């Protein structure tokens, strides 16, 4: 159990550094640390599928992020927004945090799977009959590609949409006839 605390504290420290450092490239690398930390955490949480996906996605995501930052001439940033606005948002966020922190007591304790306490949970069926019903040894694959394949279609579509959107945003010339520039 201790390993989870250590990893999570590591992730949080990395996240705080990523948020607070003035160096943009350093912030991006700290995000990488958060990502790899969470990937390790997934591994210890017995989710190898997610760990693999997280690592490879993290690598590509970092490449994308670094592309955005590294070739820029000035990667240092300074200052925050106005003091008042910062204080107000911090207070609001802190209140939400305090409100939320009690909430987790209603969840099953960490280490007890959700389906152990819910009588009609689908997961129990996935585990006991997933192999027989869908034929895949990897139960996660059987969930995403058979039981909940419709979600996966949506997910593939999200990626498709994002890529088309990105190529649309990045295209060189957007308008054919130039309109009068608006004020």
């Amino acid at each position, binding site marked *: 159990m201790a390993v989870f605390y250590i990893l999570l504290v590591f992730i949080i420290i990395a996240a705080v550094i990523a948020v607070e450092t003035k160096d943009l490239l350093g912030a991006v690398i700290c995000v990488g640390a958060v990502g790899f930390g969470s990937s390790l955490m997934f591994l210890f949480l017995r989710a190898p599928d997610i760990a693999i996906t997280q690592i490879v996605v993290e690598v590509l995501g970092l490449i994308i992020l670094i592309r955005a930052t590294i070739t820029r001439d000035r990667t240092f940033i300074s200052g925050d927004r106005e003091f008042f606005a910062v204080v107000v948002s911090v207070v609001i966020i802190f209140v939400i945090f305090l*409100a*939320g922190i*009690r*909430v*987790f*007591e*209603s*969840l*099953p304790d960490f280490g007890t799977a*959700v*389906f152990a*306490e*819910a*009588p*009609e*949970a*689908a*997961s129990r*069926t*996935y585990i006991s009959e997933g192999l027989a019903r869908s034929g895949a040894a990897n139960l996660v694959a059987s969930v995403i590609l*058979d*039981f*909940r*394949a*419709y*979600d996966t*279609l*949506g*997910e593939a*579509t*999200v990626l*498709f*949409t*994002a890529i*088309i*959107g*990105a*190529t*649309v*945003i990045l*295209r060189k*010339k*957007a*308008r*054919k*006839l130039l*309109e*009068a*520039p*608006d*004020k």
Partner: protein
Amino acid sequence: MSIPLPVFVAIPLVMAFLLPIFVKKGKTAATLLANLATLSLLVLAIVSIGQSSVYEVGKWSIPLGINLVLDGLSSLVLLAVGVVSFAAMLFSVRYMEQYTAKTKYLSLFLLMVAGMNGVVLSGDIFNLFVFLEIASIASYALVGFGCEHEELEASFKYMVLGEIGSLFILFGVGLVYGNTGSLNMAYIAKGIQNTGLNAGLTFALGLFIAGFGLKAALVPFHAWLPDAHPSAPAPISAMLSGVLIKALGVYALARMVFNVFGISDSIGWLLIVLGLLSMVAGAFLAIGQWDLKRLMAYSSISQLGYVVLGIGMGALILATGGNVAWASLAILGGLFHLLNHAVYKSLLFLTSGSVQMSTGTRQLKEMGGLAEKMPITRATCTVASASIVGIPPFSGFWSKLILVIAAIQAHFYWIAAIIVFVSLCTLIMYLKVQRYVFLGELPENLQQSKEAKNSMLAAMVFLACLCVLMGLLVIVPFLRSHILEPAVQVLTDGLEYSANVIQMATM
């Protein structure tokens, strides 16, 4: 004949996957196909009226797989999506000629439609989240389609706030799963019916309200809308204001609050307060605008307030044990206003697009006297304005009337007063539009402005006819009992939803 429900998603999706393969040569064919897709969706939506069914994807019985639910509320929103997307697609045939990358535009448009249909039909909260993301991501990209300064900034602002909203929703999904062990709306509702809301579920409900409120641009969360909606190309503005904020925001919120979590009087008050705030703040902010599309965007916030107000009043009356008839009336007003607003606000945005296309500006002060140059645009804009203000024979009148009656019946006299007051503000705003755009002196530089192209006119006239005829939906009992009342029934049933769905699924 019952329709296999995934068709609503599959048609636009497959079309969107195939369209980018058409490169330069097949542009006409691509446009034609895209129009065919939206037309077929409209036809399917009309056919689906009055049906209710549950479709289990992959033949997995409910808690295992994902189910799609078609009921009165879904088919109402599907109808709105169908009508507006058909008109906007028709409009964009010629309008989008000023931009490059048309096939990608068509593809994104269809993906957005598919996302909305998926959200409306979904019976599973995680699936709802996924389709919500499809529609949102497509709309982020479409807002920035012009790639000018203002558009990119608006797109970024919209995207940041939208993603935060999505993550709230995802966190809420996680909490709900942790507390009930199920992702299926019907089973969650069943669990909540048995055990009631605990702290975790209440917090999840709060997250859902914040997330969907961000998507619906209700007033404390509205910061992105006045930037995003005007910046998009006109047909997209029409889609965003007309249906996106309703399908992703109001519909999903109503579904969650009424059918999954169950209503309580505090939720009712919360919705009423959100609605009133949106109405009043949106109207006041709109009056001060000098940018045509920005004015309309603020007015969208205000009009959406009516919808949320109607639904909230219904929730409050139901939760406090009031008369169900009045609650139904309030919800009917809200939902009817949703449908009306989808039609006339998209019409207004389309007219603004045609004005912008011929004059090249959106500033009210730079326009004037376009009534002679663009008679049809002027006529449709007048119809839409009259409708949104609530002048008797047009559609907006009926929904506002119903809301006022419901408020008075339920003894919320001050709410009725606010409704009338906001209507007056709306009147001022659209008189301003009429005065500065179509009447007055024609400026020198606009002497060459021409009437819009044919297909654009067709789309506008189609919507204008609907504006005039929509009043029939409440007057004619047949239409009312087939379109509006089933939708109201779904909401007043509340948590009975789960029993209905489970029963329909086992049939």
